[in-house]
């Protein structure tokens, strides 16, 4: 899992310009299922089965900056995409969507810095309006945990990628969707859900370490968040799978951050939706920290659900 996660961390893909990471995933996944992109740009992988339709989703995009204006003297003004703290970017090297590097500087001072104060120093080469920028990839590994840029955004990709590669049996008609524009209020998941119209959905993503929810203490099953109260039938299934596999899980209720599930739940005639997460320390900083074991446990849980059928009440 680690080596693929590391590769995923290295791929650009700020909201709206997810091309590089989606292309990489598509190449990896063409052998495991039928692959397509929808109009929004979501990447869908379909593994046909005779059973009910299950959709697993994870967002692929990163928060970041977009060039809005080029200035004389080799600088560029930017706007921000997604929830980010402008001051965290000041003085950092960013990688542009077209591959060059730039340094973020600020006309403001200290932590009062606003998004409007940020600008790019382009001594490394010119950029074009519309190009996006994200922290240059960082990776720091210890025995217990991984520190990486945008771990919260890309951990879910590696969980679902691993799942698809490991998956053997299972009767579910499975759709795995890598969604775009997750950082912009989960804009991609709604159209994907309407296209797939599943009987059940589980969203997979990172969540902020807060309160009792901590990284290293097992996968997080969200009962509710700002945008959704998750379906009990799905949550129960995840909990049954955890019990069967002897995995410790954490239950979260009332996280401030809204997960993607709220974007799937009300679609079409309504979709039974659950939310599986892994806790991330130093949320949205240039080096987010999470436990590799939590992420592996997420894959194990999903695999158990898919292969061992805890889907009695949906039959």
């Amino acid at each position: 899992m680690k080596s693929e996660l590391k590769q995923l961390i290295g791929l650009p893909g700020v909201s709206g310009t997810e091309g590089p990471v989606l292309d990489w995933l598509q190449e990896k996944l063409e052998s495991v299922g039928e692959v397509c992109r929808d109009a929004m740009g979501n990447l869908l992988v379909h593994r046909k089965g005779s059973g009910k339709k299950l959709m697993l989703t994870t967002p692929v995009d990163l928060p970041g900056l977009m060039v809005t204006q080029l200035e004389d003297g080799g600088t560029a003004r930017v706007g921000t995409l997604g929830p980010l703290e402008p001051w965290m970017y000041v003085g950092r090297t960013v990688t542009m969507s077209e591959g060059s590097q730039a340094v973020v500087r600020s006309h403001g001072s200290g932590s009062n810095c606003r998004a409007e104060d940020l600008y790019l120093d382009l001594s490394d080469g010119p950029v074009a309006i519309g190009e996006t920028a994200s922290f240059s990839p960082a990776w720091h590994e210890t025995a217990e945990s991984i520190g990486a840029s945008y771990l919260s955004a890309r951990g879910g990709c590696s969980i679902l990628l691993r799942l698809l590669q490991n998956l053997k049996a299972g009767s579910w008609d499975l759709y795995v969707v890598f969604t775009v524009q997750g950082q912009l209020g989960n804009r991609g998941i709604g159209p994907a859900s309407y296209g797939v119209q599943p009987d059940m959905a589980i969203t997979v993503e990172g969540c902020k370490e807060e309160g009792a929810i901590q990284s290293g203490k097992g996968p997080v099953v969200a009962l509710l968040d700002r945008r959704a109260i998750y379906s009990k039938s799905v949550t129960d299934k995840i909990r049954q799978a955890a019990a069967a596999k002897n995995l410790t899980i954490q239950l979260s209720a009332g996280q401030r951050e809204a997960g993607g599930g709220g974007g799937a739940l009300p679609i079409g005639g309504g979709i039974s939706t659950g939310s599986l997460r892994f806790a991330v320390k130093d949320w949205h900083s240039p080096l987010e920290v999470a436990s590799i074991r939590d992420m592996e446990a997420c894959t194990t849980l999903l695999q158990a659900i898919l292969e061992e059928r805890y889907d009695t009440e949906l039959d």
Partner: protein
Amino acid sequence: MVETILTLCRLSGVSGWEDSVREYLIKEAEPYADEMRTDASGNLLIRKQGRKRAKREVMLAAHMDEVGILIKSVTQEGFLRFAFVGGVDQRVIIGKKVYVGENRIPGVIGLKPIHLTSAKERKTIPEVSQMYLDIGANTKEEALRWVRPGDFGVFAPEEIILGGNTVCCKALDDRVGCGILLTMLKEQLPFDTWFAFTVQEEIGCRGAFGAAFGLQPELAFIVEGTTAADAPPASGSEKVCIPGNGPVLPFADGATMYDRSLLQFLQKVAREEGIPWQTKMRIAGGTDARAIQRAGKGCKVAAVSAAIRYLHSPSSVGNIRDWELIKQLLSKALEKLEEQDEI
């Protein structure tokens, strides 16, 4: 086309009361439309046959509604209390003329006399709760003979032609789009195309969702008026876009990431046709694309906007040449879309 746009601007169409705009469009489009319907939300949907059948369903969209006011109550003295419909710039509406309801009862937006204000009040922008609409009534009863709470109020249409190809009037956002679409609808098209004239954009893109959900297009072009902010003291990075510099093709705004492939296609068409264009230099605002992109299974969206100064005020200013270039760009884009296999 400019005359059509100005005629459209003169009509009343505050969000939720788009009737007179829709009626005008129906009357004008009828001889050219192959299918026409008003959906449950009030969107006007028109299909026009082209030379060929459409390779992919394409929708052009513009919103019919404009910002305005809503009458809330009447005071004992016969003054009307109101709320804004949509994001009205409240710094500029004091003293402006307004017509209320379908009977177009004239009124003027009033405020406490200046010599009764405190020094502090003179330095701050008054809240809408401190303003009132004066229709000349002396008592509550008299006022209620002419207007009712729940009536809409629309800014008085008083257009003036300024220099440098610019025009000042109300509701350029988005009668510019309506006028451009109406003009295109009357011309021969390369393939069957849907035109959606939507309702309630100014209060959260509420109409467009239903229009897109009903038609399920593959591609949508949203023709809009967008805030210019090029006048003083805006400088450098504060400028958003500039009237007279051509169609605005945004990468992103506050509500939508536009489809990059569709945007590149439009840029290519503009380049090949020698049409100048600009982009939005700030990620702000929003268009009906927000709803259209995410309705149903989703669709690819691009916006082609006209830069408008003083956007949500009774005196918005736009450039005629921009409007003509938008129409030209869209017409050429449709022609070239036909040859395009992949977007």
